[in-house]
C-alpha cells in the first residue's frame, strides 16, 4: 500500500505526537544514559570518553553485585506476597461477592490507597512497626510480650511488608479484570460434569487467569525492583537497594558515568524479565473462542 497524501496527513495527525513523545522522552534519554555509561569520572566531575571501566567496576566490586542480588531477592518476596494476598482477594471479589454494588465498593477500597501519597503510606508503616509503635503497644498491652520488640522495623522484612502493602493494588487490578472476564458457562460446564470446586479452580479458572497473574507479578516485581523509598524509611543498615545505589552515584558520589552504567545494567535486567513474562504469557494463553 502506498501512502497517499491524504493518508499521510491523517497518519501524521494521529501519530506524530505519541511518536515524538517516544522519541524525545524515551529513546533519546536512553541513548544518552547508555553513552554516559562509557564516560570517565575524573575528580571533581567527569568527561566524555569511550571505555568499559564502569562495567568492569560494577561486575568486579562485590558491593554492586551484592546489592543487585539483594534487590532481586526483595522484589521476588514482594511479588510472592502480593500474589498470596492479591489472588484470593480478587477471587473473593469476583466469585463470592454476589452484589455488584458491594463488589465495586470493595474493589474501590483496594484501589483508593493509590490516591494517597506513596510517601505517606510508607511512613505510616514506620509508626505501626516502631519500637514505640502501634504494633508494640498492642503486644505489650495484651501481655503477649513484656517489653517492646525492635524486630519489626528497620530491616528487610519491614521493607517487604511495606512494599507488598503499597503494590498489592497493581496485582489485584489485572487479576480482577481477568477473573471477571472468565465466561461463567465454562465454570458451570465443569460443575455439571461433576468436577469438584478445587479441580474446577485448578483446571479451569487458574489457567484462564494466568495472564492476570503474570501481568500483576511483572508490574509488582518491576515497581519493587526500582523502589528507593522503602529502604530509606523502613530499611535498616543492610537495606540498600539498587535504586539507592543509583541515587548515590548521581548524588553524593557525583559519578554519573558509573551511575549510568549501573542504570543500563538495571534496564537490561528488566528487559530480560519482561521478555520472560511475555513468553510465559504466550505459552499459557488459552483460546476461548
Amino acid at each position, binding site marked *: 500500500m502506498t501512502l497517499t497524501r491524504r493518508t499521510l496527513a491523517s497518519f501524521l495527525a494521529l501519530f506524530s505526537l505519541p511518536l515524538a513523545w517516544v522519541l524525545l522522552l524515551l529513546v533519546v534519554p536512553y541513548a544518552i544514559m547508555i553513552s554516559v555509561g562509557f564516560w570517565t*569520572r575524573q*575528580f*571533581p*566531575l567527569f568527561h566524555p570518553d569511550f571505555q568499559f571501566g564502569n562495567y568492569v567496576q560494577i561486575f568486579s*566490586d562485590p*558491593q*554492586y553485585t*551484592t*546489592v543487585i542480588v*539483594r534487590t532481586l531477592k526483595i522484589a521476588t518476596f514482594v511479588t510472592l506476597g502480593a500474589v498470596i494476598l492479591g489472588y484470593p482477594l480478587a477471587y473473593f471479589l469476583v466469585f463470592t461477592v454476589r452484589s455488584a454494588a458491594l463488589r465495586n465498593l470493595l474493589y474501590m477500597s483496594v484501589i483508593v490507597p493509590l490516591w494517597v501519597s506513596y510517601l505517606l503510606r510508607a511512613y505510616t508503616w514506620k509508626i505501626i512497626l*516502631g*519500637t*514505640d*509503635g502501634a504494633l508494640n503497644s498492642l503486644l505489650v498491652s495484651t501481655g503477649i510480650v513484656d517489653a*517492646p520488640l*525492635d524486630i519489626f*522495623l*528497620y530491616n528487610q522484612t519491614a521493607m517487604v511488608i511495606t512494599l507488598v502493602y503499597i503494590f498489592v493494588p497493581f496485582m489485584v487490578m489485572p487479576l480482577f479484570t481477568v477473573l471477571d472476564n472468565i465466561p461463567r458457562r465454562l465454570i458451570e460446564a465443569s460443575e455439571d460434569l461433576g468436577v469438584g470446586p478445587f479441580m474446577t479452580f485448578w483446571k479451569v479458572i487458574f489457567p484462564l487467569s494466568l495472564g492476570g497473574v503474570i501481568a500483576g507479578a511483572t508490574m509488582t516485581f518491576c515497581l519493587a525492583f526500582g523502589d528507593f523509598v522503602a529502604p*530509606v524509611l523502613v530499611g*535498616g*543498615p*543492610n537495606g*540498600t537497594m539498587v535504586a539507592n*545505589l543509583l541515587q*548515590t552515584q*548521581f*548524588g*553524593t*558520589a*557525583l*559519578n*554519573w558515568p558509573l551511575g549510568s552504567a549501573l542504570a543500563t545494567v538495571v534496564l537490561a535486567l528488566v528487559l530480560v524479565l519482561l521478555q520472560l513474562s511475555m513468553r510465559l504469557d504466550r505459552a499459557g494463553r488459552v483460546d476461548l473462542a
Partner: protein
Amino acid sequence: MRMRTLKTPMIAAFAAVAITAQTLAATAAELNILTWEGYAADKFISKFQTESGCKVTASYVGSNDDFAAKLAAGGGVYDIITPSLDTVPMMRLAGFVQAIDTAKVQGHDSIYPEFSKNSDFVAEGATWAVPLVWGSVSLIYRPDKFTTKPDSISVLFDPAYKGKISLWDDKSAIYWTARYLGYNNVFDLTDEQLDAVKAKLIEQKPLIRKYWASAGELTELMANQEVYVSNAWTGLTSKDVNNLKKGFEVVEFTPKEKAEGWMDSMMLVKDTPNQDCAYKFMSFMQSADGQCGIAESTGYFPVNPKAVESCMSDELKKERQVNNIEFVKSLVMWQQPKRLDKYLEVWNAVKAAP
C-alpha cells in the same frame, strides 16, 4: 460625556496594569539559597526580606555531598550555597562558584580571621567563601540507659548496645572510625588504614539500628526510643529531642578521641542573576540580626564576634564560644579529604555490604 465614561475605566485599567507591573518588578528581586535546616528560619529571614526587598526561597540539604549533586544536575536555580569546610574547595575546583568581592560584604573584617582567611577560602588570589556559622559534631546519648557515663567513641562499637546505635549517613563516619582506631591523619588515610576503617564499619553494622540522613531523622530516632547513642550536630538534636518532653533526656558529650569541628560558609553560585540580593544577604548574615538569628535557631556558634556583641548575653556568649577561638584547637576541624572519591567509595561499600 459618553467619551468620559469610556475613558475612566480604561485609565483605571491602565493604572492597575502599571501598578501590578511595578509590584511584580519589586517582588522579582529574589534569592534562592541551598542550605541546612534551621539556616533560613522565618524569624530572621523575614527581617531580611523586609529590609532588602529580596524574596528568599530556601531548599535544604541532608549532607555536604548534596551541594555538588544539586548544582551538577542543573545550576542557575540557586544563588547562594552554604557548604562546610570540607566541601568548599571542591565547589571551586568543579567551577560551581565564583569569587566573592569581600568589599561588598559588610562586616567581613570582623569575622574571626582564622576562619575568613582559611587557605581553602582564599585561593588563586581571590576569596571564595564567607564564614556563616560554626560548631561541632559530638556524641549524644541517653543517660538513663547507661550505667556509666561514656567517654569514648568506643561506645558506638559496643555490642552491649546492639540495635540501639545510630550514625550519620555521611563520609564523616570514616573520620570517627579512624580516630577510634587511633589514626591522626584522618583526612589523608592510607589504603591500609582505609581498609581497616572499612572492616571496622562493616563489623559495626549489626549493632546499627539505622544510619540517620537528616537532623530531623535523628531527632525522631531518639524521641521514639529507637536508638540510645549516636553522633550528632552539637546543640541541635539535643535541643530538639529535649523540647519534645518525652519523659527522658538526651545529653551531649565530647569523646576523649576529640569531637569534630565544622564551619559553614556562604558561596556565590557562578553567574547568578541575583548578585545584589546575594551580597545583601551575606552582609545581613554578618549583622547582629543575622548572626544572633542563626545562632538562636540552630544552637550553633557565631563566626562574627563583633556582630553578636550586643545581641547575646555574657552567659550565652560563653556557651557559644564567642571570642574563644582556642576552642577550635580542641576539635578536629574538618578538611576536604585528600582522596575524596576514595572516601566516598569506602563509605558506599560499607552501606552496600550485607
